[in-house]
């Protein structure tokens, strides 16, 4: 049941993938419906919190502070989690994390594990690695189960199967759960999942999760969820292995005050998630006795090193930016070629890939700023997008078209003479392309015939990208400067 995971290293460019996906009317309808519903709920619940902006600001400061002192808080977390009976493992990259998890699972002697929805384990393509090692992972979140059984890929951070509607889900469950008479209501489908998974919760001895927050002060872990599958995985098995990005650490318990409010209102438009689980290490007689956390770098320290890009790591994975993004709402998540789609994915993925892959993603945005406005920890996504576009151009070298064009413009702007020469040259160069339209007006006797400014409907080569979808207005015959100087020479209306 292995599927081809979303991999930024092999994915086509956003623009190429988007063109194909835009043709899928059902997908666009499903995505639009889901994002509309969440956005409306979110808006109502954000408006009722009069201290929302204060919470956002605190959330931003807490996350930025934790990153600024990441070494201190990771060491503190490690100390406290270990003292509480847990085991910490460090993974430099995805392959190392996969190896650690596989070894831990093998030590238990099981060939099956249950999983809580985790974007971090999707990022490191853990399920395929486990499968290759002879271990089958059962996804237990309803959406992840739909994705897994449908051999599909997640398209949203919070609601990974939002691109599927109920009849598509029914078809998958009918086939894969062998339920020919399965009904179509969401209740029927949820009940089928409950039946399918209950036996696994009671039997499988190892669970794998991510985490929403780590708390340095207590060595604590926090996982929020809706269905109770998380609680099943966190409390019933003997062994719990959590794969967590190093950026997820918070200094103290009190930092949850704003974050545990910001997250559910932003993510699902709920006042609180149905379930928040918090625990510190092993608690005799309550939950797993064998507890492991794999702390994952996998490019995160690279992001940390980039002063402008660092704020990307503040993200608490609420998905509000995806729901608000006019680009995501048209293309859905798969076009981004990464488990992190939408605006946050457009800045996170290329940075995690050391800017070697996903170079088209920083351009998958109109820079409208809706993502920044809804971000519960105030990540200035448009600012980072522009910063990354700059990096892409720099990386592609001086001979890249954008780079050459910008250098030429910079040269022209350096002296007035060159600027005027460039304007003259531009007027001459464009003249064969300009189409003039006569105004539909009677000519006033004694005056020149009135004409609208000319328009250019076609430009050659790379510039054609602009005129493919719109016309370009021709340069005016006389620039403002020319007009101003002439006017001064005449000496009229001088003050």
């Amino acid at each position, binding site marked *: 049941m292995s599927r081809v995971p979303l991999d930024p290293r092999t994915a086509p460019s956003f623009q190429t993938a988007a063109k194909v996906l835009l043709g899928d009317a059902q997908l666009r309808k499903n995505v639009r419906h889901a994002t509309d519903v969440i956005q409306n709920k979110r808006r109502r619940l954000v408006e009722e919190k009069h201290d929302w902006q204060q919470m956002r600001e605190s959330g931003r400061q807490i996350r930025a502070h934790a990153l600024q002192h990441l070494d201190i808080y990771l060491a503190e977390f490690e100390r406290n989690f270990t003292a509480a009976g847990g085991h910490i493992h460090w993974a430099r990259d995805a392959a190392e994390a996969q190896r650690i998890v596989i070894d831990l699972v093998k030590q238990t002697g099981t060939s099956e594990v249950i999983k809580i929805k985790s974007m971090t384990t999707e990022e490191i393509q853990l399920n395929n690695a486990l499968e290759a090692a002879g271990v089958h992972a059962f996804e237990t979140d309803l959406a992840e189960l739909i994705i897994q059984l449908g051999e599909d890929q997640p398209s949203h951070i919070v609601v990974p199967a939002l691109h599927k509607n109920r009849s598509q889900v029914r078809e998958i469950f009918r086939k894969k759960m062998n339920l020919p008479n399965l009904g179509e209501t969401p209740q029927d489908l949820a009940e089928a999942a409950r039946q399918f998974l209950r036996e696994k919760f*009671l039997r499988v001895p190892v669970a794998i999760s991510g985490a929403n927050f780590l708390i340095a002060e207590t060595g604590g872990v926090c996982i929020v969820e809706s269905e109770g599958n998380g*609680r099943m995985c966190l409390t019933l098995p003997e062994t719990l292995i959590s794969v967590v990005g190093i950026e997820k650490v918070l200094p103290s318990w009190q930092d949850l005050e704003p974050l545990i409010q910001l997250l559910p209102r932003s993510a699902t438009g709920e006042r*609180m998630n149905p379930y928040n689980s918090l625990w510190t290490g092993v608690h005799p007689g309550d939950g797993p006795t064998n507890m492991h956390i794999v702390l994952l770098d996998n490019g995160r320290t690279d992001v940390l090193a980039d002063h402008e890009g660092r704020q990307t790591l503040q993200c608490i994975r609420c998905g509000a930016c995806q729901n608000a993004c006019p680009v995501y709402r048209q293309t859905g998540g798969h076009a981004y070629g990464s488990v992190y789609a939408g605006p946050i994915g457009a800045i996170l993925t290329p940075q995690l890939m050391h800017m070697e892959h996903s170079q088209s993603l920083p351009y998958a945005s109109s820079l409208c700023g809706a993502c920044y406005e809804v971000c519960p920890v105030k990540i200035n996504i448009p600012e980072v997008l522009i910063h990354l576009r700059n990096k892409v151009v720099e990386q592609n070298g001086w001979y890249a078209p954008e780079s050459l064009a910008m250098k030429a413009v910079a040269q022209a702007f350096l002296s007035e003479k060159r600027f005027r020469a460039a304007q003259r040259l531009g007027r001459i160069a464009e003249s064969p392309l300009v189409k003039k339209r006569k105004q539909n007006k009677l000519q006033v006797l004694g005056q020149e015939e009135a004409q609208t400014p000319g328009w250019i409907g076609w430009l050659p080569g790379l510039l054609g990208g602009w005129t493919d979808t719109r016309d370009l207005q021709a340069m005016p015959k006389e620039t403002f400067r020319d007009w101003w100087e002439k006017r001064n020479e005449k000496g009229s209306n001088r003050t």
Partner: protein
Amino acid sequence: MSTARDVIFQRIAKAKGASTPEAAHIAYATIERNYQSAPSLDRAPIIHLLEDRLREYDAHVYRVTESNVGEQVKQILAARNIQRVLVPDGLPESWLQGAIFEIDNQQSALGLNDYTAVLTTATLAIAETGTIVLQNAPGQGRRAITLIPDYHLCILRTTQVVETVVEAMRLLEPTKHLPTTFFSGPSATADIEMTRIKGVHGPRFVDVILVTDEIL
């Protein structure tokens, strides 16, 4: 050979310069926390708000005085046709009426799956969000007992109700090391067409008895 841990710490130090616990401590104190941290309502409206929120989640809420808790439990269990109830250690005998009450004896998950109902108390409740907080403590038990049975009857005192999440987090500070579960209504999902469906894996039915031992 340097370990993965060493390499990651070196990378972090290179990325932003190494920090010290003292520097972190001083900077931490400057974080602004200007959000609401005190209640804005009086006690009576706070309790009403909790009741409203719980009912929005389809929980049934009953308000009784201490001496009537046992009778209320009996009535609810009879109405729900429940004869056998799992309970943690530490509940008052007088509450346990109208069914066979079996104390959790650390049975396996499979054993817990035989129970359809569980009765517990709680650490506190948050009115604003309709949240009830459970911890591993007498009267509440380990986490699995409030998870596997399909029905949860939860008894809490109105003095345990706070208005905001922030107040709750501050009250929980001394017991922050305990396994803690916040639950807000029955388990739910909106994964299919964003339609909220009650009850996926956790309890599908939740009733709450509020014991009024303050003057409202």
